[in-house]
């Protein structure tokens, strides 16, 4: 009905790659993490730990690359346009999103009928994505704090003492993964519930026509299906 056009400028190829790497790493980390927490089948502990200790570096390097790329790569700051700006603009406050938090909440709660105007990432969406950065770092910190080669280093041991020992640190690490699982579930749901164009773009880099917008968020053409 009113689906925005999804052009490649919204997600340049490098971000398609970092998104894939994030997905693969998180699946591998969650699976191996669950296994390490409680080995639910036999003969896999060595592999599970190897997976965990490999992908934890992959995801950290990927996060670093993603953040650095935000300052050098240009991408669209709204849907339905081929115009691009430096990607970091997507992560700072944007004019299109101003005063729209309430509108988004109402829209999601079915208290508002029409779709709120917004930038490429709506208010809540952007907050959720940004929160994954400290969350990843928290997972890394709590993970290193219970990982034998690092756990005795003062930087991690101090945190372990502060939370009351390694058992508590492990539980925090465990819960951070659950937060990621919840995030991923909600993220996948909201990204696709109004149509799978976002997934086609971020995974297969396939475009889909739809509504086009001007810099003020006004519909300037295209058809929403």
């Amino acid at each position, binding site marked *: 009905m009113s689906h925005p056009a999804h052009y490649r400028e919204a997600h340049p190829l490098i971000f398609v790659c970092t998104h894939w790497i994030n997905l693969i790493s998180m699946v591998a980390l969650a699976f191996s993490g669950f296994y390490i927490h409680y080995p639910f089948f036999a003969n896999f502990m060595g592999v599970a730990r190897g997976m965990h200790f490999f992908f934890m570096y992959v995801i950290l390097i990927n996060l670093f690359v993603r953040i650095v790329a935000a300052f050098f790569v240009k991408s669209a700051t709204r849907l339905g346009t081929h115009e691009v700006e430096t990607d970091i603009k997507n992560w700072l406050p944007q004019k299109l999103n101003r005063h729209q938090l309430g509108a988004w909440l109402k829209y999601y709660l079915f208290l508002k009928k029409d779709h709120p*105007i917004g930038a490429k990432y709506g208010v809540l969406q952007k907050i959720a994505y940004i929160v994954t950065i400290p969350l990843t770092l928290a997972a890394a910190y709590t993970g290193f704090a219970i990982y034998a080669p690092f756990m005795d280093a003062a930087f991690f041991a101090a945190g372990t003492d502060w939370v*009351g020992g390694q058992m508590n640190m492990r539980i925090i690490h465990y819960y951070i993964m659950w937060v990621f699982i919840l995030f991923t579930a909600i993220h996948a749901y909201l990204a696709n519930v109004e149509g799978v164009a976002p997934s086609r773009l971020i995974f297969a880099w396939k475009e889909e026509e739809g509504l086009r917008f001007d810099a003020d968020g006004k519909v300037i053409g295209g058809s929403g299906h």
Partner: protein
Amino acid sequence: MAHEDHGAIYDLLAARGVSRRDFLKYCGSIAALLGLSESFVPQIAAAVNHGAKLKPAVWLNGGACTGCTESIAQVDTPDVATIVLDLLSIDFMETLSMAMGEDALAAAEAVFEEPGYILIYEGSVMQGFDGNALRIGGKTGLEELDHAAPNAAAIVAVGSCAVDGGFVMANPNPADATGVKPYLEGKGITTPVVNLPTCPVNPEWLVAIVVDVLLLGSLESGAILDKLDDWGRPKYIFGQTIHDNCPRRGHFENGNFVNEFGTEEEALGYCLYKVGCKGPQTYTNCPIVRWNRRTSWCVESGAPCIGCGSLDWVDVGAPFLNRHRDLPLPGVGNTQPGVVAGVVAGVAALGLGLHAVGMKASGRMDGGAPYEEMKAHDRKRMQKGGGK
């Protein structure tokens, strides 16, 4: 050569049926425990040999089960450890002193008057009930510790209770139990405390401390303090995890686990990780030193480590056969973290499902609702500003 000396110690050893060879072997194991090279064996032997007159010591019992006394007093077959510990002139010990009542207390008092003794403290410091949870000779346990601690050259806190309150301080901790070190720090008493956790304490560790502190002079030189970690535990005993040195570690790496007791996996001696072993987070050298005269230790004998060498070990370790501790949720009680996560995830899944029904019903699934012409905020402002 020092170890050629034939002093009183060898007569003692002979009287107890311990050969000189056994003695030197034992000194070698102490050297290993202290992180010293083999070349220190003669020095240790000489120190033990010549150390017949040592600092007096007083053993006080706080709030605990006296299991540490039992552990130290395992004298059914006298061995070198017993003899080394005999060198510690323990002038007062409630459970094992021959003297009783006023006589015993007078002996302790005599020691307290001469600064420089070693105070061995077993059990927690129970601060609740104005200290009246423990009374000795008409005084509270707190008064006794306050009196004994300042003049001591060093305090050896034996067992987890003396370190941080141990099982006595487990929730709900009605006696407000704590350890010697935190208690004295709160009182501003600065006597050095060497913490030897685990429940009970391993006598080998006390032997190591006796040799290190008393015989090798590391107390006078201050060297002992450098050997302690932030929690006052000797690093050479509490520096590595049980998991690091576990004889079942190979089974862990291979993924061979005991799923429940009484199974073939248990008979095969597989890793006890799934049945709650706390070895990966417990810093003691139990797998190396072992217990009961190096016969065996918990994991070797088939029981998962319950983490008794950790701080707050009951609350962070129970239930002992689970991978996670329980979380004391207000109004719910003790709950496993996985159950909490499952409930939250279930509610979230239900929420998303209901939301999807709403999306379908409101016709938004096919591209979402039509876009608003203008932000609600801007529209309001325009209306206020007269349609501008």
